[in-house]
């Protein structure tokens, strides 16, 4: 990026009208950069002619920490990456280690994992919707979204005692048996949730201002998306039907029926529609899941001390933000030799520069919102 724009006001060019371009430093303390993202914008008036993302303000060295923790000890750390969707992070990590050790979680554990992960997807998308709408200036949807998210967090709390960084799963299965009313709680949530999504849509989907602010904004073509490795709803909104839940099923996704919504134009409006539909699909999966939770053990055959055989493994899941992959190298000891995490937020964020060129400052905010980044995951 450095050759395109070296910041600090050094390479200020003069535009057509003889006015200087200005350099606007957005963040790291800015209401809509979702945490501590810093974007240097080169502006011609209000039009963006170039940008550079500066990340790392939330870097904690998660991958390095892994090298000094046992496999079990590291599991809670991954919750702190995408703290809006901790359950999904945990699922990805546990499944990767299981793959490395060649054990399988029992069916009961897999179904419960699927249900909780889908609830987490809904919660994550709700949070995205609320903040995205807030970025575009609609204040109210945020609170409606948080109201429903609260119900999901309550289910998590009842299940494992934690709400945000849940550490819900264990390597090899689950630590806790599902509580008695889990099915009932999930069912009650899902029954009411359909109408709630309609409610959000009634506020936004056909709103003239909303459409004006999102349609045709931040277009990402399918080719460009694939070239940049963008995944998740951002990729699907560009029209690529790629969802790891279908492509390489994990947990219990192969048992359930759901569809993958895709967009057409790859603009902000399509990404909005795709995520709205994904919430409905997740609800469908949850409802199917609670119908039949198989009986049996919740923890597979794993010992107290985990010593995977030497080797390496890559496993990825469809996190709410995209493909969340873990690459683990084991040297046969109790601690991983190397853990590399593929965070969907970071890779999606790389498309930002291409998406915001030619747009206005107001659109930059909308596009950052539509990428659904979580800085904890970008910086790790």
């Amino acid at each position: 990026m450095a050759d395109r724009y070296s910041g600090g006001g050094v390479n200020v060019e003069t535009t057509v009208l003889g006015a200087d371009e200005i350099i606007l430093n957005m963040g790291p303390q800015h209401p809509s950069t979702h945490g501590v993202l810093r974007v240097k914008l080169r502006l011609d008036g209000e039009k963006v002619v170039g940008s550079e993302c500066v990340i790392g303000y939330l870097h904690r060295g998660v991958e390095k920490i892994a090298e000094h923790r046992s496999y079990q000890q590291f599991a809670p750390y991954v919750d702190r990456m995408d703290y809006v969707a901790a359950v999904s992070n945990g699922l990805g990590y546990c499944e990767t280690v299981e793959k490395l050790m060649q054990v399988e979680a029992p069916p009961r554990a897999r179904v419960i994992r699927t249900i909780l992960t889908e609830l987490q997807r809904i919660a994550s998308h709700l949070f995205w919707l609320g903040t995205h709408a807030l970025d575009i200036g609609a204040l109210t949807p945020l609170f409606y979204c948080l109201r429903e998210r609260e119900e999901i967090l309550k289910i998590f709390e009842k299940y494992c005692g934690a709400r945000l960084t849940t550490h819900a799963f264990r390597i090899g299965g689950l630590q806790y048996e599902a509580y008695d009313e889990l099915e009932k709680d999930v069912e009650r949530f899902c029954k009411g949730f359909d109408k709630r999504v309609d409610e959000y849509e009634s506020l936004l989907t056909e709103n003239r201002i909303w459409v004006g602010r999102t349609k045709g904004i931040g277009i990402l073509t399918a080719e460009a998306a694939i070239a940049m490795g963008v995944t998740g709803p951002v990729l699907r909104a560009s029209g690529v039907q790629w969802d790891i839940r279908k492509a390489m099923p994990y947990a219990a996704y192969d048992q359930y029926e759901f569809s993958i919504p895709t967009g057409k134009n790859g603009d902000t409006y399509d990404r909005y529609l795709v995520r709205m539909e994904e919430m409905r699909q997740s609800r469908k999966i949850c409802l199917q899941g609670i119908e039949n939770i198989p009986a049996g053990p919740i923890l597979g055959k794993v010992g107290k001390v985990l010593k995977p055989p030497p080797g390496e493994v890559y496993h990825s899941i469809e996190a709410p933000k995209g493909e969340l992959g873990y690459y683990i190298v084991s040297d046969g000891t109790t601690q991983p030799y190397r853990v590399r995490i593929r965070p969907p937020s970071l890779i999606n964020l790389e498309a930002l520069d291409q998406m915001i060129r030619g747009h206005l400052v107001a659109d930059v905010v909308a596009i950052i919102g539509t990428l659904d980044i979580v800085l904890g995951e970008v910086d790790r």
Partner: protein
Amino acid sequence: MNLNAIIPYILPVLFALVIVALLPLVAGYIVLVERKVMADMQVRLGPMRVGPHGLLQPIADAVKLLLKEDIIPESADKLVFWGAPLISVTAAMLALAALPIGPFFQIADLNIGLLYILGISSLGIFGIVLGGWASNSHYSLMGALRSAAQLVSYETSAGMAVVGALLLAGTLSTRGIVQEQSDTGWWFIFVAPVGFFIYLVASIAETNRAPFDMPEAESELVAGYMTEYSGFRWALYFLAEYTNMVVVASIATTLFLGGWMRPFGNTRAFNFLDYLPPLLMFLVAGYCFRRTPKQPVQVQKMFMAAVGLLCIVVALVLIMPLAVPRDSYLATSKPGIHGAFWFLFKVAAYIYVFMWLRFTFPRYRFDQLMRLGWQFLVPLSIVNVMMIGLALALHRQFGWPNWISFPLCIVLTLVAGGFLLATGEKHEHPFVGEVGEGQEEETPVHA
């Protein structure tokens, strides 16, 4: 000296003092009401801690802001930075001088009243532009520039909407305009609904309120022109914004909503509406008394009861002119007291609409805002003026009855509005060409 001779001089000064003294308080409470309305729409409670139901929150906020350190950025132009908020507040307050709050309560009945208000209230923009420029920050500068552009654009259409009402009233005096509505019994909103609509939209934009809050645009420009301001200087901008809201609401009330008139003011059958204001106040008082025992702290109980008592007093004042014999001296105060009530009531309703819109709609983008202003509102307001003129001409020159000429012209204006809306659709996305690919067609999501 004869007392009667100096009263015309003393009274306006008194009124002015009352307004200047009360306005910060009123603005503070509008903020509280806004937070409460917002909370209500967002399934929350809003401020509840300071005083019962947060009733003392504005005072706590004001004290906090006064005690804050007064920061002037080092690279700022100190003098301009210092003076800019004052310009905004002064301009906003001055505009209130010519507005009639009831038939008696008015600081000055200027014969160019409306012209004065429009002139003064557009001075407020200097405060914003200078403040944004003096801060020496990019966010502030962009906020200020947006504000300048926005105000110029929307003042045009607001002015044209006002011209419509002027044509109908035939006078620039604010009192005269209300008098005209009171004489005919037709509020101008019914005669010129499109004009009212234009003024509503333009006034939201003029006061920099969502969905047209470009200059502040929290999620984009942090706080726009006031990014570098803090403490009481910031509060002055806030005060100016809320005073401006009161001003535009008052203008709208005066021009379109019949000013201090009661609904159906000339119809005897609706005289029972006179009892509505005291009844309303009694209800509020009743609510306060009912909630009193539920307050957690003794002080809050007392405060709640005091608010209830205050409402009772207001109710008694409102009912007094109705209760006494028709020809007594007290009964003559009825238009003054009830006029003030109805005026403030309408202003409050107008401001409520502002809040309602703010919490419902996303924000326009700057270029969309300008396009809406120049391609839709300005032409529509010109058509509106022409149509009102046409209706008046048909009525006065050709003797058409009012009930034919006005509806005809309203329909014609609406048709013009629809036409503008339909043609404006084509120019929606300015960047489509640059970014690429055909995305004009509808975008269904394939589930």
